């Protein structure tokens, strides 16, 4: 069974195709070469004048797991204005900042996304995360396991266990929790908060373990490298949201000494202390450092104005930020000697100096970092804004006059301080295809996704070119998932489940001996029950597992 997409304008950065008219052939869910002339083409889509890209990939979006579910439960008022009716095809639910899993899956697909990755899966909460991801239809998914504040790791690091043993532990965690990568959040800081430390700088010591965030990042980055995990260590650095943290971020880049590292929602880590209000943009310095260090990739975590909820593993800084909760309610949780979380609703206001400056800082970063292969489009959903605002964000990047119009509406002082007005750059469709498709796929090691070459999974999005890029990216003409049309004119036409991507790095099974001892003594569940069986993801029929190769 062959499907042909003909006459479309193709943007496929992996193959250097920049807006060329090409035909695409699909067979059994995969993109394939042009078949011989005598082969019957079963279906032809004439896409004259339409734009074709691979399905979009969100590398960092909080779509499932405990903290998201707390946000859902805590904020009925968030859902009330965005209730979603059931249809013949789709289930009911609700949207906005903390949408139901089903609605999240539908809306991602309706925006042309075919894969989403949950960046903060607490190992202790991995089972729930997988259940929620399995209940997120339409898209592929995967998760990064959070380490660095767990007592087992910190014990190893402080007792100077050799790196090999630490790598074995990291490898074990990836296998046990069915993860696709490793994330560290406020390295060691979530743990330090449990000992009542209220801040932890890059070289400050955890008072119990005597190790610093720098030690933790280096050790985990090395483990990720040694295990051959394709995605570099995913780092939510120290001092999130703290004015002056631009220096922490620059020091963190230096700390990995050339090892690969991904710095996530870097907007929240690019703040200076200049000006009357002691809050300023550090975007230029950060962008310069990113441009100079090819081992570093980032995603932005752009903020957009309006009501949202911040949900993070960083209990320490979420606690510090709870004074700004809007509405005035918030949750902090310490979790299982493993990690923690904090959920704080927040409203970003365009007339507020700090919020307006955050908005400009994110955009400055987008526009000052040269290489779109190392910067990914995120709002750190829902922390900076709900993911449904991506089309608006794309327009801000692609349309300078629109951007300047928006700039003129924000807090005047912030607008004046920002260099944004002087930046002429506009992203091209090719740049967008890189930062939302090709680059995240490459960073995650998803070899047959994010491009349109022969052998790629036929996850494809077709748009009508429009001047208003927000409109264009809000409503694709077609979305193909594994070769099937799932969305037409921005509406679901077929419900599919998508797969869960995992890794199986090799490690010395000897580590289970010390893990078993640790679990038996200190944990409240057994080691065996901590591990997530393939069956648990596949059993109820919503899920399928794709094991990605290690490097």
């Amino acid at each position, binding site marked *: 069974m062959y499907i042909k997409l003909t006459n479309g304008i193709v943007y496929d950065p992996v193959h250097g195709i920049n807006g060329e008219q090409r035909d695409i052939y699909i067979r059994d869910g995969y993109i394939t070469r042009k078949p011989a002339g005598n082969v019957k083409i079963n279906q032809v889509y004439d896409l004259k004048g339409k734009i074709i890209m691979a399905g979009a990939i969100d590398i960092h979006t909080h779509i499932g797991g405990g903290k998201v579910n707390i946000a859902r*439960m805590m904020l009925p008022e968030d859902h009330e204005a965005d*209730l979603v009716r059931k249809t013949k095809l789709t*289930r009911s639910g609700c949207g906005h900042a903390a949408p139901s899993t089903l609605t999240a899956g539908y809306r991602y697909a309706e925006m042309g996304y075919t894969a989403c990755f949950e960046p903060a899966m607490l190992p202790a909460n991995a089972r729930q995360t997988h*259940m929620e991801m399995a*209940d997120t239809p339409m898209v592929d998914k995967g998760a990064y396991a959070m380490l660095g504040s767990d007592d087992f790791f910190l014990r190893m690091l402080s007792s100077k266990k050799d790196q090999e043993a630490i790598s074995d532990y990291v490898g074990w965690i990836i296998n046990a929790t069915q993860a696709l990568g490793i994330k560290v959040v406020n390295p060691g800081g979530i743990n330090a908060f449990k000992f009542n430390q209220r801040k932890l700088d890059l070289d400050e010591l955890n008072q119990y373990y005597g190790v610093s965030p720098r030690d933790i990042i280096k050790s985990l980055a090395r483990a990720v490298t040694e295990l051959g995990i394709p995605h570099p260590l995913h780092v939510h650095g120290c001092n999130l949201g703290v004015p002056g943290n631009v220096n922490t971020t620059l020091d963190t880049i230096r700390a990995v000494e050339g090892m690969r590292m991904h710095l996530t929602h870097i907007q929240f880590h690019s703040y200076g202390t200049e000006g009357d209000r002691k809050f300023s943009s550090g975007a230029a310095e950060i962008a310069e450092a990113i441009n100079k260090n090819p081992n570093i990739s980032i995603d932005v975590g752009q903020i957009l104005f309006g009501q949202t909820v911040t949900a993070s593993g960083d209990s320490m800084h979420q606690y510090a930020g709870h004074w700004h*909760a809007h509405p005035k309610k918030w949750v902090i949780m310490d979790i299982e000697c493993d990690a923690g979380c904090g959920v704080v609703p927040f409203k970003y206001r365009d007339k507020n100096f700090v919020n307006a400056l955050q908005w400009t800082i994110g955009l400055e970063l987008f526009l000052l970092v040269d290489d779109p292969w190392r910067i990914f489009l995120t709002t750190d959903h829902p922390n900076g804004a709900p993911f449904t605002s991506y089309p608006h964000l794309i327009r801000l990047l692609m349309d300078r006059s629109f951007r300047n119009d928006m700039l003129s509406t924000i807090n005047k002082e912030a607008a004046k301080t920002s260099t944004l007005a002087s930046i002429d750059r506009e992203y091209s469709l090719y740049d967008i295809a890189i930062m939302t498709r090709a680059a995240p796929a490459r960073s995650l090691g998803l070899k047959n996704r994010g491009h349109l070459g022969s052998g790629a999974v036929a996850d494809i999005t077709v748009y009508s070119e429009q001047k208003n890029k927000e409109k264009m990216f809000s409503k694709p003409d077609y979305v193909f998932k594994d070769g099937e049309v799932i969305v037409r004119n921005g509406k679901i036409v077929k419900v599919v489940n998508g797969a869960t991507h995992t890794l199986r790095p090799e490690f010395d099974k000897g580590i289970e001996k010390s893990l078993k001892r640790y679990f038996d*003594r*200190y*944990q409240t569940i057994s080691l065996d*029950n901590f591990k997530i069986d393939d069956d648990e993801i596949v059993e109820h029929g919503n899920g399928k597992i794709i094991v990605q190769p290690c490097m």
Partner: protein
Amino acid sequence: MQQFAQHYNNKYLKIKELSLDKTSSSKVRTIRNVTCPFCGILCDDLVIQNQNGKVKVIENRCPKSTTAFEKELPENTPKIKGKKVSLEEAIDAICAILKKSHTPLFAGLGTDAGGMRQVMQLADKTGAVLDHMHGDALIRNTLVLQDLGWITTTMAEIKNRADLIIFAGTDASHYLRFFERVIWNKQSLFNLKNDKRHIVYIGENLNTKAGISPTGKRPTVLNCKTEQIGEIISSLHAIVTGASIDVKEIAGIKIKTLEKLAEQMKAAKYGVIVWSPAELDIPHAELTIQNFCEIVKYLTRVTRFAGFSLGGNDGATTANSVCAWQSGYPLRVNFNKGYPDYDAHHYSTRNVLKNKEVDALLWISSFSSNTNAPRASIPTIVLATPDTKLNFRPDVFIPVSTPGVDHTGQLFRTDSVVALPLKQVRRSPYTSVHSILKQVIEKI
């Protein structure tokens, strides 16, 4: 159906821990790390022996798990109005009732994550109202979460860190191994010795024996009525903030005693207030729970403190969690308008039955047999354990298997964070809630 039986049989044969004891003539299988689904703290260290189908808890037992696991399965069959029928006929009858119904009520909801996923799908499809049998307890917490939020913790943190544990309105005696598993430890991560832990009880008729440390250190006990716990906690809150209180006694407790406790709370490195929403069975218990949460928040300004809620029996935490991720709302939800409509008060089982807002009832209880399905003058479907005794004759009854005993599954612990895998420890002739509802969804 056949497929499902086959599926579960395959799972059963795959259980790695099964071992054949060759020395005896009978087949003895020993299964380790079994999760007990019969209370919200989900102990998962049970060792269970299956000898020719007879189940015994041989290690880490408690009276509750022993009774529940070792109970013989009585013979029972699906019934329509008391008459024995095949499973197919019973499922067809369920479909017929739900098809005719404008607004059914799905209540009880004593099932695992897999069962609850089917409940959600069927509720969406049929426009049902959802409530759990422990719904009153669940919403006492939910209302606090939605009003001001909280700071909470989980069992492993209590086990390793908590040096002051205040039991407010509960003695945790319904959670039989709570003290054994998280309070009186052989070892803890940060060398917290048992005698360095201080236990406090506040409330009435509490059995405080478990709070005596292994070396005999006695807990502090503040006796007061359940209704007065909130007053005591808010007085403590006032004292902690430095306010002076102009009376000698609050709720029969001397101010001096409260002042001493307030000092202990401020001096604690990691304090925890434990409550059990089901046991705070007083009007507006959410206000008492909010008192706990607000003093915890205040103390967190200077030290570390957290709340911990004991509950989650009969899959309550699971039902609440699955409902929240699939609909966006915690229980209680009504799908009748085509979208989830949340109202924690309005959509209670009691209320919608009393007001005749529902015209069919589906009651689910696959863990305990004494959960008192409500008797209502509307078509009633009961999916319950085979030993369930009802004081009325439902339109459809199907005996169901129990997750974690008769089939595998997943269940959430009381802290809403840890979900545990459930094992199958015996063969059961009965069908799971998941399987029955899946067939209903396919047929309806």
